[in-house]
């Protein structure tokens, strides 16, 4: 008995050592890339296209974009392909990939040359309007395709971010609080309001449209009727419609990657329980939602699906402090008993807003660390967790990008702003500024 107690105490002491995790970023081997300037390169527009591609490729942190160099420029735009794509020349210049964009009338053509394998790939040309703000998203998509060839994983430059933007209107005596859903590009540009409910709208979730990525749909919570309810809308509609005919407060919706289930929090029964609504992208809600988890005197929050939809990470305060649990996300049949959720980690305390990475290997979350909410990630395979952010200011609501390397989160002090974080770069990039509360960001899957 005494020896087992001793073991327990010693293991407790050892386990608690894991709480203090040194900050570190993943090690990377970067590749040298030469991005040739666009010929003739005389107009501001051509320079803007070049800068956009350069920024998108640099952003990944996986490659080094080499400086403009006369010799490389000479080879890249040489009319004779035997000279332009002479591997020995490029290897002597220590260049792994050469990217050659050209503008022919209104079309952007891009060639990508792999100097190691002597392979030349030509991307399908895209039609541009020569208005950079209109063309920006198309150029980001080209950058993502280049990333796929160069880095073996598609980039996230064309992925948008949805978020809630709250403003207090002082002269409105009836209800001074207004919040709408906004979108922005991955780099914080092109911020645009996409709901006009003239109400209080928060916690958006993407419903991607694979055939028409520009016209995606999204879920969000609006208070326009009084109790918060989950609404569905699409990018080109300013007002949405209710999704689930269920009484009470509906909060914090999350959609599975297969788009077949919506997890959410509802107090229909009188306490904040975890629910799942079967869903179809064209038909909407299918049948009745089912109660997945409930516990006396506790509240559940922030569900996030495993990419295959079989499991959910969520927050529960069933044992006091809010912590993250994992639960099976199926079994909608009658007479189900409450499943037993598995505690994710005992090392961190007061942990909330989990976000399961698209590769299924990590869960990002916010946890109070020495009195400040910081972003952490839990490695599912290793069973280890790592603190990602440091410094003052609470950080909450992480949401992974498709590459499982980048994520967005928002601060809640001293200001409410949205930041972009990379596992490869310890310095987050601020995406929003100015007055108002910008929060609950979510990356396009």
């Amino acid at each position, binding site marked *: 008995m*005494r020896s087992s*107690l001793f073991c327990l*105490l010693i293991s*407790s*002491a050892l386990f*608690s*050592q894991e*709480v*203090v995790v040194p900050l570190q970023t993943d090690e990377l081997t970067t590749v040298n890339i030469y991005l040739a300037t666009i010929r003739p390169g005389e107009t501001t527009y051509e320079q803007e296209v070049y800068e956009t591609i350069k920024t998108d490729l640099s952003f990944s942190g996986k490659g080094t974009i080499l400086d403009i160099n006369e010799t490389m420029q000479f080879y890249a735009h040489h009319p004779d392909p035997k000279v332009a794509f002479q591997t020995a020349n490029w290897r002597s210049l220590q260049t792994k990939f050469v990217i050659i964009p050209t503008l022919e009338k209104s079309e952007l053509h891009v060639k990508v040359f792999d100097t190691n394998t002597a392979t030349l790939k030509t991307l399908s040309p895209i039609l541009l309007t020569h208005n950079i703000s209109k063309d920006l998203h198309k150029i980001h998509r080209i950058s993502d395709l280049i990333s796929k060839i160069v880095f073996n994983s598609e980039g996230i430059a064309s992925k948008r971010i949805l978020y809630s933007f*709250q403003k207090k209107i002082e002269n409105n005596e*009836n209800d001074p*609080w207004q*919040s709408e859903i906004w979108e922005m590009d991955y780099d914080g540009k092109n911020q645009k309001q996409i709901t006009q409910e003239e109400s209080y709208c928060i*916690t958006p979730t993407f419903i991607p449209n694979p055939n028409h990525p520009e016209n995606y749909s999204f879920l969000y919570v609006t*208070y326009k*009727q*009084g*109790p918060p309810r989950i609404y569905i809308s699409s990018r080109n509609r300013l007002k949405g419609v209710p999704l689930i005919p*269920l*009484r*009470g*407060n509906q*909060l*914090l919706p999350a959609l599975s990657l297969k788009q077949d289930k919506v997890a959410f*929090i509802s*107090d*229909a*029964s*009188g*306490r*904040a329980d975890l629910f799942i609504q079967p869903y179809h992208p064209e038909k909407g809600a299918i049948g*009745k*939602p*089912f*109660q*997945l988890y*409930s516990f*006396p005197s506790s*509240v559940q*929050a*922030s569900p996030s699906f495993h990419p295959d939809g079989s499991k959910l990470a969520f927050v529960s*305060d069933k*044992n*006091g*402090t809010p912590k993250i649990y994992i639960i099976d996300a199926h079994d909608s049949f*009658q007479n*189900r008993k*409450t499943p037993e959720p598995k505690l994710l980690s005992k090392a961190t*305390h*007061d942990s*909330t*807003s989990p976000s399961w990475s698209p590769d299924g290997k990590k869960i990002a979350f916010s946890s*109070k660390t*020495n*009195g400040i*909410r910081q972003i952490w990630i839990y490695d599912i395979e290793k069973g280890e967790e790592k603190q990602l952010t440091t410094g003052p200011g609470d950080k*909450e*609501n992480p949401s992974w990008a498709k590459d499982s390397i980048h994520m967005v989160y928002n601060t*809640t*002090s001293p200001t409410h702003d949205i930041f972009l974080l990379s596992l490869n770069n310890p310095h987050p990039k601020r995406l929003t500024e100015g007055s108002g509360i910008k929060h609950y960001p979510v990356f396009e899957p």
Partner: protein
Amino acid sequence: MKHYKLASLIVISLITTGCTTTLANLWESAKTSMRQASYASKTLISKDPNSRLISTADEFFTTVEDEFIPLSDQDVQSYTISQAKEVPGLPGGAIPGINSFHSPSKALSSIFTKIYFNTDQHVPKDKEAVAAIHKMAAFLKKHPSLYVFIEGHCDERASEAYNLSLGTKRSNCIRKILVKEGVNPEQIFTVSYGRERPEVTGHNEKSWARNRRVAFKIYDKEGKL
């Protein structure tokens, strides 16, 4: 002697643990352990830790119609009280949306008075709050055409998303008490704002105490109140 050894072991362990973790985390662990111990003891004494709020299941249990597939556990079903059947603000519905509800007039502000809570609590403890709820219940029973929204608010110390859920706990607790007092559950709606709409914006105990609250908005179908 045995006790002496055990105590020494615990002290050594605490010192070791204290060296390897932060005081804040140690305190959190202690709090969680105490809550678990408290929960376990209450479970042993009564059937459920919530039994102090609910006298019999029959008294409170109302069906949630046929809107969702519930869990079948006894504890899940027995201690819940479903929301009002009518969803306010539906086109053609009997109850309008929250924009038609208003803050209580001066004459009614002493009845529908804001209720404040201690940290981490969702049950009003002080006599004034309990008396206010009694008064409110009597008024609502006397005026069946009066509908009320109970708004649950939190302070800024817990995270934003978690607070959205937590806000339902306070508003539902007040609703539960009103129903226990005999108010028609169809007269009472709840809404959780979490920490989204603070009453005051300070970052100190005084401000947090003001923000841990439930507030009321009312709508009289007969237009008299």
